[in-house]
């Protein structure tokens, strides 16, 4: 029994350390995660418009790659790009916030991003026009 006590204390300490680490841990780097799906912004939005329930089950919480034309001006904080919208239709867009502000101040006309899908925000019964597919913790691929 006496020999067990130090082992138990050590195990508890290791467990506490692991628990503290996991609880305090930030998010995984999206760059290190392979995209499960890759598609154009228009196709991604259309899938949600066709069947929101099935698309939610398929894409939400997954890392997905989206490509398409940049819509409007990207959002910037302190001169660095923090978010962008991708779409060829200003009523239905992919809204993408970057995990880290981009070092580049400008984007190409057509880009590819990879991010975690939060879902689709659109309601035909509200005053809100169109809908938006939201990505968080995204990175710019090209």
């Amino acid at each position, binding site marked *: 029994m006496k020999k067990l006590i130090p082992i138990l204390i050590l195990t508890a300490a290791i467990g506490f350390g692991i628990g503290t680490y996991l609880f305090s841990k930030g998010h995984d780097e999206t760059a290190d995660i392979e995209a499960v799906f890759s598609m154009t912004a228009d196709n991604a939005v259309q899938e949600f418009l066709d069947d929101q329930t099935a698309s939610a089950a398929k894409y939400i919480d997954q890392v997905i790659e989206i490509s398409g034309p940049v819509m409007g001006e990207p959002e910037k904080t302190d001169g660095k790009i923090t*978010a962008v919208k991708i779409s060829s239709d200003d009523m239905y867009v992919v809204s993408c916030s970057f995990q880290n502000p981009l070092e580049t101040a400008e984007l190409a006309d057509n880009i590819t991003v990879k991010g975690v899908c939060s879902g689709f925000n659109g309601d035909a019964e509200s005053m809100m026009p169109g809908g938006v597919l939201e990505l968080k913790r995204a990175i710019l691929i090209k």
Partner: protein
Amino acid sequence: MKTTIISALALFLAFGASAQDKYFTRDGYIKFYSSTPIEDIEAENHKVTAILDEATGKLEFSALIKSFEFEKALMEEHFNENYMESNTFPKSTFKGEIVGFDASKASDKPMDVTVKGTLEMHGVSKEITEKGTVTKKDGKYILKSKMMVNPEDYKIEIPNTVREKIAKELEVTIDVTLAIFKK
């Protein structure tokens, strides 16, 4: 005389038309903040959609729960899976109005307003009345408000193991800039 009447009519129609516009954003900001002696927790959503009907003062907000971002990954996971059950209740919405809204009184100085309507969260709808400000600047409406929300009012259960880490009431900050919506 005819020219005067036509000009007056044109001016009236132009003024009337401009007060019928809707103002919209997909980049609204909502933050909620919990402060206890043990821990401060905050989450931000920069993709809130909101729309204001200038003619009627009707106002709507919609926010995906999974677009609220926390610094700590596990906290975000618990928030979605255990507290908000966001797979079942993916968004929070507000539908209501700015009470007695008169667009002609909006200016670049914040104007105190009362907002009244239905807040739906975690499958529960509740009538709320809150204070805020409206500012009109560079052709855009800026709406701001700060309010307290009690998770229990929306049947959000906080486990006893973490109860002391989360405030009984959360401070919710709303800051949206709405631009004219052109169809």
